[in-house]
């Protein structure tokens, strides 16, 4: 089966200059430098098929951006192999970037002082986009991204959400086969986030563009991605379907109980009290051992209950557990 990205045992190590502290340290820095090696990406392997929409997750400093920079040809790997669209990105930077689109979080590809439409015209020229394709793409993106109200506004006057929409349009005008998105929804409100997500889904499904996105916002992943890769400390901890992730590490459901009065002892067999605050207690339980209704039955037999709610394990807690407990290691 065809692969659009093949990464095997990819590594990127940085030598970081260790500053000594204080005046004496600053003086010694001048003459002898100490370095430590940071393994930002430390043996990562994965393959991506055309048309996939992959979420790339990890805490800050995990190696997400470093991987993305290697995939886009900005960084040369320290080791391992990296093929994107049958090219080694950094060896043929210009040919490579002509076939990809990239939106890197808070930075814009557009010209700060130019009206949006003129930036887009300039990109048409730079990427040598044929006029009919440019017109067709513009018509589609203007509608999908609702660009019309600010097409004539200089980029510096756009809101964050408007700028992200303009940047997405700019990244896709030349019909890239691959789209890299680094934190595409960061700093946006709920409505703006949803609009961006809809657009990403549209691009992936209707145009068949392969999309790789990094994000902190797990609802991006839940709503968009079928496949998730989790990286931490330079190593890939998980690569698979979102559902598998949830099943394997979804953790336990929890029941939040508000008692009608205060009790000293609220323990129940087969369930664990994980939070206690006045009249409120949170029980954690496993579906296979104890159903929610059984637990409620046991509780109501002993205590007077005012209110109940079931808390589903969320993906965020799941991923946090994976990082914290290093569940996937070994």
């Amino acid at each position, binding site marked *: 089966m065809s692969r659009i990205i093949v990464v095997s045992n990819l590594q990127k190590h*940085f*030598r970081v200059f260790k500053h000594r502290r204080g005046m004496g340290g600053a003086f010694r820095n001048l003459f002898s430098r100490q370095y430590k090696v940071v393994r930002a990406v430390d043996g990562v392997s994965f393959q991506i098929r055309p048309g996939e929409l992959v979420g790339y997750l990890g805490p800050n400093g995990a190696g997400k951006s*470093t991987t993305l*920079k290697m995939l*886009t*040809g*900005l*960084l*040369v790997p*320290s080791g391992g192999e990296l093929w994107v669209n049958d090219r080694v990105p*950094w060896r043929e*930077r*210009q*040919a490579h*970037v*002509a076939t990809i689109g*990239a939106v*890197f979080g808070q*930075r*814009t*590809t557009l*010209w*700060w*002082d*130019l009206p949006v439409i*003129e930036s887009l015209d*300039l990109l048409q*020229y*730079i*990427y040598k986009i044929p006029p009919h394709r440019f017109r067709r793409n513009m018509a589609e993106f203007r509608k999908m991204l609702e660009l019309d109200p600010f097409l004539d506004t*200089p980029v510096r006057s756009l809101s964050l959400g408007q700028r992200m929409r303009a940047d997405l349009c700019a990244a896709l005008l030349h019909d890239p086969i691959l789209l890299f998105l680094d934190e595409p929804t960061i700093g946006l409100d709920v409505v703006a986030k949803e609009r961006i997500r809809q657009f990403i889904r549209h691009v992936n499904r209707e145009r068949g563009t392969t999309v790789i996105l990094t994000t902190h916002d797990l609802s991006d992943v839940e709503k968009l991605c079928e496949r998730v890769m989790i990286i931490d400390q330079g190593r890939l901890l998980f690569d698979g379907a979102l559902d598998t992730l949830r099943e394997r590490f979804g953790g336990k459901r929890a029941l939040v109980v508000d008692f009608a009065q205060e009790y000293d002892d609220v323990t129940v067999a087969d369930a664990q009290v994980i939070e206690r605050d006045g009249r409120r207690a949170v029980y954690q339980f496993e579906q296979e051992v104890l159903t929610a209704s059984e637990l409620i039955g046991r509780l109501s037999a002993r205590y007077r209950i005012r209110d109940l709610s079931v808390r589903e394990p969320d993906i965020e807690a799941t991923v946090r557990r994976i990082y914290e407990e290093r569940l996937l290691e070994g």
Partner: protein
Amino acid sequence: MRFALDVYRRLLAVQIRAQLQYPVAFALDLGGTALILIVEFGSLALILQRFEGIGGWSLVEVAFLYGMVEMAFNTMDMLFSGFDPPVFGRLVRQGQFDQLLLRPLGITLQVLGSRCETRRLGRVVQGGLIFMLAVGLVDVRWTLLKLVYLPVVFASVVSFFGGLFIIGSTITFWTVESIEAINVLTYGGHEMMTFPMTIYNDWLRRFFTFIVPAIFLNYYPALYFLDKPDPFNLPPFAPFLAPLAGGGILAAALAFWRFGIRHYASTGS
């Protein structure tokens, strides 16, 4: 190549239009720099008049040196604004340099096209006026060779300072702390070239002859244009070394720049 030039032209047009969006600021900038130059040269002229010249050069002869350097340096400062080391350092730190690398265009072309300080034009024009005034008053005996060589000298001085800008920018890939070292050469060289070399002591002159060959860019060509004798007894072709010195520095700078880009791609900082 034609595509590259056309892209460059368009990128510059963006910069110029952006600056013209604020016409008042633009006019004030032009006027302000005009005032600085007039005050600068005015005070120099007053001093020189009092001493009746300097190092065997009359006021108008010094104006010849001064005008040429001002014209060429500020033309360079305008065309190579993107390579102004502090500006370029910011471009790298704020991640805009990565954005340029994501476009299917040569990186040197894009850095050149990323900025164009058109307000330097004011100083270019004034440098030109001072130069023309000097040429008129000093009564140069023009020959065909002199007429042809004049623009070559101009281009050489532009290349020389452009090279220093590129070297300074490349250094910012490693450290932002050492920019001052190259600034001493750039702005020191600019200052030094406005005066006849006879006023400097030997070690400084040797430094600017053998290590950084700035002496061949303005001083020696001026000796030739003004038909003045060479006080340092260099070979008679010395006035014609300007393109070699300017082009050599620029070529070395571009080689260093390529090396710096490779370093950047392996460290990302």
